[in-house]
C-alpha cells in the first residue's frame, strides 16, 4: 500500500498545499450542519402546530427580525415532577442560531426531560459544547437560545401561579447618562466589541461621563473571559 506522501508526490503536490486545497467547504461543525439542515422539534405552522401552541404550558420569544435573530420556544411541562417534557421551536436567523435552538430543544427533552431548576442553569457554553463549538463571533446566536428558554420558563411560572420562582433578568445601570447597563455591555462583547473603543462606538458609554470608564473596562474584561476565555 502506498503512503499518502507517495500519492502526493506522484501528484506533484506539496503536502501542505494539498491539505489547503482539499479543505472542506463548510464553515461549522458537522453537528451544526446536521441540526441546521434537519432541525429537531420544529413547530410547523399548520393545524397541528396551532393545536400544539394552544396546548403548550409556556411560550417564550426573544429577539426581532430587525436585529437579525428571533426565536420562539413552546414548552410542555409536567407540574408534578417539575420537568420539561416536550419542546418545540421556530428560529429566524443564521445557521448557528437555528442549530443552537434545535440543540437546546434536544437538551431539555432528552433522558425523560430536564428538571426546570436545571434548565434555568443552562448556559450558552453548554449548547456550544454540544454543537462541537461555534466560531466565537457566532456565540451571540446561542445566547438567544437560553434567553428564550428562561423567558418561556418564566411564562410557565406566571401561568401556574408560581410567581415567587420568576427570575428577573437583573440589569444594572453602569452609565446613567446613556442608560447603558451591564447587559448591554455583555451583548456588545458577544458581538465582538472587545475593547473600550469598540464598546464606545456601539454604546457611547462613558464618552461624556468619563468617571464610569473603569467600571466599563472591568466588565469588558469579565465578559471577555467569560465567553472567550
Amino acid at each position, binding site marked *: 500500500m502506498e503512503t499518502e506522501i507517495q500519492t502526493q508526490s506522484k501528484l506533484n503536490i506539496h503536502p501542505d498545499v494539498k491539505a489547503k486545497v482539499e479543505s472542506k*467547504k*463548510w*464553515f461549522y461543525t458537522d453537528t451544526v450542519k446536521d441540526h*441546521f*439542515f434537519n*432541525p429537531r422539534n*420544529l413547530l*410547523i*405552522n399548520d393545524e397541528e402546530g396551532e393545536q400544539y401552541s394552544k396546548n403548550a404550558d409556556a411560550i417564550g*420569544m426573544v429577539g*426581532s*427580525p*430587525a*436585529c*437579525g*435573530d*428571533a*426565536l*420562539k420556544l413552546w414548552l410542555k411541562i409536567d407540574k408534578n415532577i417539575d420537568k420539561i417534557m416536550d419542546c418545540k421551536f*421556530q*428560529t*429566524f*436567523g*443564521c*445557521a448557528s*442560531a*437555528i442549530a443552537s435552538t434545535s440543540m437546546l430543544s434536544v437538551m431539555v427533552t432528552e433522558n425523560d426531560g430536564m428538571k426546570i431548576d436545571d434548565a434555568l442553569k443552562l448556559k450558552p457554553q453548554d449548547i456550544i459544547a454540544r454543537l462541537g463549538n461555534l466560531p466565537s*463571533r*457566532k456565540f*451571540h*446566536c446561542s445566547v438567544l437560545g437560553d434567553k428564550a428558554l428562561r423567558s418561556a420558563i418564566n411564562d410557565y411560572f406566571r401561568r401556574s401561579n408560581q410567581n415567587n420562582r420568576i427570575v428577573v433578568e437583573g440589569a444594572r445601570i453602569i452609565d446613567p447618562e446613556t442608560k447603558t447597563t451591564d447587559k448591554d455591555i455583555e451583548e456588545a462583547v458577544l*458581538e*465582538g466589541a472587545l475593547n473600550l473603543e469598540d464598546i464606545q462606538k456601539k454604546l457611547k458609554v462613558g464618552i461624556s461621563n468619563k468617571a464610569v470608564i473603569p467600571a466599563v473596562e472591568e466588565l469588558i474584561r469579565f465578559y471577555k473571559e467569560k465567553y472567550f476565555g
Partner: protein
Amino acid sequence: MKEIYLDNAATTKLREEVKQEMLNYFDVVYGNPGSFHGKGLEAKNAVEDARERVAKLINAKSREITFTAGGTESINLALKGLAKAMKDKGNHIITSRAEHHAVLNTCEYLEKYECCEVTYLEVDKYGMVNPSDVESAIKPNTILITIMYANNEIGTINPMAEIGTIARKHNIYFHTDACQAAGYCDLDTEKLNVDMMTLNGSKVYGPKGTGILYAKTGIQLVPLVHGGGQERNLRSGTENVPGIMGFAKALELAQTEREYEFNKLTKLRDKLVNGILESVSKTFLNGHPTQRLPNNANVSILDIEGEALTLYLNEYDIYTSTGSACTSQTLDPSHVVLATGLPYEAAHGSIRFTLGKETTEDDIEKVLEVLPGIVKTLRQISPVNVAVEHIVEARSKK
C-alpha cells in the same frame, strides 16, 4: 454537481488568456524593472508597455497610471494622498453613504487623524447619488468628491458624467471607484470628467492583488508607501510584473468585450430577477431597475435570514453572498441596503447574485428551480411574518 459561481462581484476567475500572458513574467522575464542591465530593462519595457495599453483604454496618458496592489490600496492612495497634499488648501471631502468600505473607512480615518471634514451624501431608494446633492454639499474648503461608478452590492450605476461636470465647474477633484464598472461600462476618463479613478484586476478576470490609480497630470499626491521611489515615487516597492501584465491583459479583454457581455448578462440577469420575483412571495429588488450593472441581481426576501439562505444554496454548489449581519465582520447588516431606506429586517434577508462570463441559462434555471423550495423551508423554521406594507412604507419615505 456543477458549481454555479454567482459571486463575481466578490472576485472573478482568472481568465486562461490572462494566465498564459502572466506565466512568461515569473521565470523568463523575471528581472527587476529597476535594474540597470538587460534583464531589468526587459521587465521595465514590459511594464511600460502595459502602462501605455492601460492608459489608452481609459483615454489617459501613461504617466497618469500608477500600478498598485488592488482597489483598496488605490482608494487609500487617492484619498489620503490628496488630503495630505492639499491640507493647506482645504480639508472637506464629499462622498456617499453607499460607497465601499475602502472609501468609507478611509474617510473615517481622515476625519480622525487628518482633521478632515467629510459629507456623506444620502442616496435615493435605488442607491443612486443625486448630482444636485453633490453640488449643494460643495464648500469653499472642499478638495475632493469621491463617488463610486457602480455599486458593488446592489449594482446601481451613478450618473458619473453629471457629477464630473459639477466637479469641473467648481474646480474640485473628482475620484471614482470604478472597480465593479470596469467589465461593463465606458472608462473614458475624458467623457466621465474624472480626475482620479481606481480599477482592480480581480473583478475583471485578472489576478488578485493588482490594480491601478489613474491620477490626472497636475494632481499632487503624498505616497503611502516609501522606499525605492518606483512608480514615479508614488508607490515604492519592486513592481509586481506578472500582476501588472495580467492586469493590463485582463482590462483589455474586458473592455473589448464589454458591450457583448453587457447584453448577454442583462438577459440572464433579468430572467433571474423576474423569476425570483414571480416565484417567491414577499421579495423586493434592491438597486435601480434599469441603471444597474448587467451582472447584478440583489433581492430581499422577507422572513428569512440571508446567511441561512446562502448556506442552503451552498449545498447545491450555488455560491452567492448576502447583506445579512451574520456574515459581516462587524455583525451589522449591509450599509448599502440600509442606505436605500429598507428597514433592518429586509437588509438581513438580502441576497446578491453576481453573474459572470461563464454563467449560463442552465445555471439561472437551476437557481430558479431550487430557490422557492429553500425559501419555503426557511420560512417554515421562522417565527417571523413581516408585513409587506411595512417595507413598502419605509421605502416610500425615501
